[in-house]
């Protein structure tokens, strides 16, 4: 049986590989073209493309690049309430703020490290579980059946709700005495005797994770669903004719064909989740419990509640570099794998 299933399942792989080879074969050609003899004869470019690009460039500079540079500059200053009105008067302290951030023996450094660990765990669990849920739902809803459209709409609801409204509702659900969660756990199911806390203490991490997954998985569902539309039915038909069952089709057709979608999806989910500010801020207010103190909220507290914008900016710069590093590493790794394939 296994032997019989092998050849047909190999064919979609080969097909995929052909796509990759095509892609990799074309790319170098494109890259080399400007260096060729035709480059010298290229006609003078008109200004039009630059003019068309200009608004986007200006906005990009104003919204992303300049604040980033200002943030990096702030991280070199002792920017407290004494100087926020006139930054030019803030003393230049060089890398002192970074020393505080990296000194894990100091309270500020130790707290940041703890917050970083919590955030990494939160991101891995949230992204992993959201992706699994989204993929499972998308695969189960791949074939048409009665009520599929209704289910699709229903699954996307959390994604369509405004973040603040949704998370505030969760804070009500998680209240110890009056929340629905404890009502179900204690009064209806009788699973625990004493109503647990969700918004303070150890469980706050679980509460945060639940809300995060609830908010995130519909996006994974949406992307994977779109990706599934692009898988030709012939592949499944061929696999089915060769006797591949559901799991085999999933492993050898669906997942390989979804790879390009998943590569982007996981990266985007990682960045969103790691930087998530709204969920913990609305769920816990400005001061999250230590167990659920995500890094974005931690930086906010370090900057705005203690009025120490220099250190807060240094933390932001470190966070930015970390995310850049992870993203670059991820892209390099996945590109190399694709090129090797």
């Amino acid at each position, binding site marked *: 049986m296994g032997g019989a299933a092998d050849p047909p399942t190999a064919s979609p792989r080969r097909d995929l590989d052909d796509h990759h080879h095509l892609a990799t074969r074309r790319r170098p050609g494109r890259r080399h073209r400007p260096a060729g003899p035709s480059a010298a004869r290229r006609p003078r470019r008109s200004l039009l493309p630059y003019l068309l690009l200009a608004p986007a460039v200006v906005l990009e500079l104003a919204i992303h690049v300049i*604040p*980033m540079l*200002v*943030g*990096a500059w*702030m991280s070199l200053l002792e920017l*407290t*309430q*004494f100087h*926020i*009105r*006139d930054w030019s008067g803030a003393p230049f302290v060089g890398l002192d703020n970074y020393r*505080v951030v990296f000194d894990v023996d*100091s*309270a*500020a450094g130790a*707290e940041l490290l703890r917050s970083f660990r919590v955030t990494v765990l939160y991101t891995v669990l949230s992204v992993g579980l959201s992706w699994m849920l989204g993929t499972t739902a998308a695969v189960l809803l791949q074939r048409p059946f009665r009520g599929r459209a209704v289910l699709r709409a229903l699954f996307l609801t959390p994604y369509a709700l405004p973040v603040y409204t949704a998370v505030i509702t969760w804070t009500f659900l998680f*209240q*110890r*005495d009056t929340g629905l969660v404890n009502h179900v756990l204690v009064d209806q199911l009788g699973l625990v005797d004493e109503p647990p*806390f969700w*918004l*303070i*203490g*150890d469980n706050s991490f679980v509460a945060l994770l639940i809300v995060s997954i609830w908010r995130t998985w519909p996006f994974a569902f949406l992307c994977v669903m779109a990706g599934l539309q692009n898988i030709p039915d012939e592949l499944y038909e061929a696999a089915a004719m060769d006797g591949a069952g559901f799991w085999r089709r999933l492993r050898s057709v669906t997942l390989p064909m979804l790879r390009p979608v998943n590569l982007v999806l996981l990266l985007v989910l990682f960045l969103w989740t790691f930087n998530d*500010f709204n969920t913990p801020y609305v769920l816990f*207010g*400005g*001061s999250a*419990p*230590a167990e659920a103190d995500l890094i*974005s909220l931690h*930086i*906010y*507290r370090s*900057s*705005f*509640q*203690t*009025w*120490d*914008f220099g*250190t*807060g*900016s240094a933390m*932001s*710069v470190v*966070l*930015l570099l970390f995310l850049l590093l992870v993203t670059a590493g991820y892209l390099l790794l996945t590109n190399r794998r694709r090129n090797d394939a």
Partner: protein
Amino acid sequence: MLTATVLAAASLTACGSGDEPGDGGTTLTYWASNQGASLEADKEILQPELDKFEQQTGIKVNVEVVPWSDLLNRLLAAATTGQGPDVVNIGNTWSASLQATGALVEFDDATLDKVGGKDRFVPAALAAAGAPDKPPAAVPLYSLAYALYYNKQSFADAGITAPPTTWEEMAEVGRKLTGDGTWGLAVEGANPSENAHHAFTFAQQYGGEWFDAAGKPTFDTPQNVAAVKRYVDLMAVDKIVNPSNAEYAQNQSVSDFANGKAAMLLWQAAGANLKSQSMAADAYGVAPVPFLANPPAGGKQVNSMVAGINIAVFKHTKNLDGALEFVKFMTSDTEQVTLNKTYGSLPAVGTVAADPAFAADEQKVLAQTLATTAAPLPQVPEESTFETLVGTAIKELFADAASGRPVTEDSVREKLTRAQQQMR
């Protein structure tokens, strides 16, 4: 990055929402703090007074009532960008912190004269308007103090004839009142500001200070450790506070008191809030906040901070004269009576203290406290940071107590030390 973006966004929002400082003669922008039952209610209370001001001076005041959770950040953004309101309400404990930004108009004697003169204001309230060695950064608008609110019916049912005057009595009385789903006392355990205010009062009673004379933090002194432990022990040891209070941060403790789920509450001028929650004024009594039965050496007879709301003017205003005119109007005798009566607070000017509007039991207790046993929170630039860090440390201690983890002197000291280390 986040900081820069948020500050930039805040300034953009400020521009976009028409919050430019007044146009030089005919309009002013005023950010009011939330004193009444809701933002909308505040607007309805203030609008007729602002109309009166317009009739008198021709200056139109655009008011926005800003919730407490946003006010400090909004003020900070306004200070940073020079965009925003002309006149603002500030929590009086933030005075020195905001003063340090240099964004607020200084009320030196000449400026004070323009709003009626220094002597008009209650001295204790004016002392909580900035660092002691500098001209005030604001003038007091509404004065408040903490008091003990107790449910008369619950007390009668438990056979208690008088409100407790010491913490020991409170624990004893509280135990009698706890049971059958009701609790002796309600606290706002997850609200850092409330926690910090109580930390201050308890520390005063134990002879502790949060900053030394040079303005350096002294969070983890034995007195402060004992003070914080005493407060958290109301839940951890005395067990007169519902553990659920450890997650209260949105005035749920006031609701619990109004709904009879808790028999006592420590709050600033809760009357107006209780009324909005349908609790009749004769259903509760008001008494001074308790003291220690046996205060240690150095312990002070303090049972409240000098609480209150100040009114300040931003230096970036294009209509300084109009803004000061408005401050004078808001601190005039008529407005002081009208507004403080509505909000249940006390006037910040001495001239109307005897007005019948402030003769209710609640106001008498608050006035007596302010006059005799209240002390201002440390007027140092790092005050708002102290509230955040120490308030959060106490929030964590309440969370420990609620989950059954022991709250010991060591665990309190450790949290306070960590908070202190985060002060730079």
